[in-house]
């Protein structure tokens, strides 16, 4: 059972011939893990997430799911295991919230099969798990940013995956919604042992949510390990080029990162 979970084995990736986005990246996401990919803008977080989800094919190395090369598994089968939540969802058409959640059932249905009562029950349960069941008949486009993000997460849950990959899930959300998304993800991880990987540049969001962190800097892994061991002023300085104070919050015990100043030397040095 040691190799259960998702792992990147020395993967490289480039969108064009010139720009290598990821270079020799290895990362492990254990089964039931709650892992954050942390790094500044342009460090390759989204690309790594897409590679882990099998949406992109690495130019070198491989991604393995439970010990099997992800690209040897048919896409439809991968979709039964891994669900993805993109950074932002904007619709050109007026799908309802329930329709958005129900679309998650796609990989479970045959070519001309329509969703049965069971699929609808799963979709509704997914909406309930993200606190959006009362919005079911609303048009998705009329929701606030936080509601939209929760509905998209519900759609991913309706896929009944055991691994959930989220790209900057709180990037465009205000504080209250950030806390809400965090508690939803924590609950899913705890109660369903859903494996969760989230990319973020928000140190405090990562500190409050993740058990393990992968620090990504200019397409390479700077360091990886338990959240507590990664949230070190020296590492953060190298990652972001910023001097920080890290303290444990008196009430919750959660590590809190306070940026103090730009570091004098170049980042990554």
């Amino acid at each position, binding site marked *: 059972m040691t190799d259960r979970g998702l792992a990147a084995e020395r993967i490289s990736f480039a969108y064009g011939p010139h720009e290598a986005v990821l270079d020799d990246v290895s990362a492990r996401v254990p089964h039931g893990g709650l892992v954050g990919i942390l790094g500044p803008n342009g460090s390759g977080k989204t690309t790594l997430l*897409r590679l882990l*989800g099998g*949406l992109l094919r690495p130019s070198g190395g491989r991604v393995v799911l439970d010990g099997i090369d992800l690209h040897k598994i*048919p*896409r*439809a*089968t*991968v*979709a*039964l295991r*891994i*669900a*993805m939540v*993109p950074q932002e*969802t904007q*619709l*050109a*058409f*007026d*799908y*309802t919230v329930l*329709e*958005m959640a*129900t*679309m*998650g059932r*796609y*990989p479970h*249905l045959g*070519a*001309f099969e*329509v*969703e*049965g*009562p069971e699929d*609808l029950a799963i979709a509704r349960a997914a909406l309930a798990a993200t606190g959006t069941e009362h919005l079911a008949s609303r048009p998705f486009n009329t929701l606030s940013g936080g509601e939209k993000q929760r509905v998209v997460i519900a*759609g991913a849950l309706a*896929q009944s995956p055991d691994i959930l990959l989220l790209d900057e899930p709180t990037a465009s959300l205000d504080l209250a919604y950030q806390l809400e998304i965090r508690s939803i993800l924590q609950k899913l991880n705890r109660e369903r042992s859903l494996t969760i990987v989230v990319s973020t540049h928000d140190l405090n969001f990562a500190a409050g949510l993740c058990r393990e962190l992968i620090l990504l800097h200019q397409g390479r892994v700077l360091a990886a390990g338990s959240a507590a061991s990664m949230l070190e002023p020296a590492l953060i300085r190298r990652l972001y080029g910023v001097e920080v104070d890290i303290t444990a919050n008196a009430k919750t015990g959660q590590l809190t990162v306070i940026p103090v100043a730009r570091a004098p030397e170049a980042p990554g040095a």
Partner: protein
Amino acid sequence: MSIGRRILVTWVLFGMAALIVCLLAPLVGSTSISLRRVFDSSIPFEDNADAQIFFVARLPRVLAGALVGSSLAASGVVLQALLRNPLATPFTLGVSAGAALGAMLALTLNLSSGIAGFSAVPIASFAGSLGAVAIVYGLARARHRGLSTNVLLLAGVTLNSFFSALILFVQFMSDFTQTFRTVRWLMGDLDVSSYAPLMAAAPPIALSFAAFAVLPRRMNLLSVSDESAASRGVDVHRTQRLSFLSASLATGAAVSLGGPIGFIGIVVPHLIRLMVGADHRLVLPASAFGGAAFVVACDTISRTALAPLEIPVGVVTAIIGGPFFLWLLIRNR
């Protein structure tokens, strides 16, 4: 209501509506005829003037309108889902103009004799629409985030004027006695008086509709984003190719039959979405039936409004569709 039931109800209701329009439209005209006499089997066909007018003079034209309308409306739905833009249609993207250029070339070069038993006009027309679609698809793929409305409309305007210039040139070079006919056809005209053109256009339309049948669920996912479709197990590139190919085929066949009739692909799907929502399993069949009913109704207006003068049906759809399109632009900002 479960989704299965809603699909069934949509098919039945919109199918009946299209059928009724197609049965009533041939009754209207310079000579009024009665549906009861048309289907009265006690009178032999040779003596039944009503049946002759119905089946020989008017029905081919109505069926042509139905084929053209459903093809253009369904192609509009497919292109809209694929480009994630409700303003994409065969007409606004210049796909109809590309098809018209192809058909014009085939007609002018007298290729009407055909290739391997198929009429050359629909094939040339398909080649033209495929060329135009390939350009739009290339544009959409070059800009990763899909086409914004601005880029889409500008690309359409550019393609339309490009193809129009070539069409005018072909027309200029060709026999001037044909000019009146081709001008009418270019305005969108359903002057079909036999079943032969229908037979030429029906196979490609049937083929594209067979492809449309497998698309709706994938179109739902693709219209959200390529990424979300892929992460749910949709083969995005294959689906895109199938959609573009089938939409080109249907548009090409429709244009070869009735000329580049405009605004069907935008007016019909929009009204349909107001009625059935956004799910493509409902929007696509309802638009196909709705498009048939809409074009047949517009053509009936074009035959009778200024009788005995016939207005090209494309003028009628433009008078309805032009303001509608502007209204959509204003509403969508």
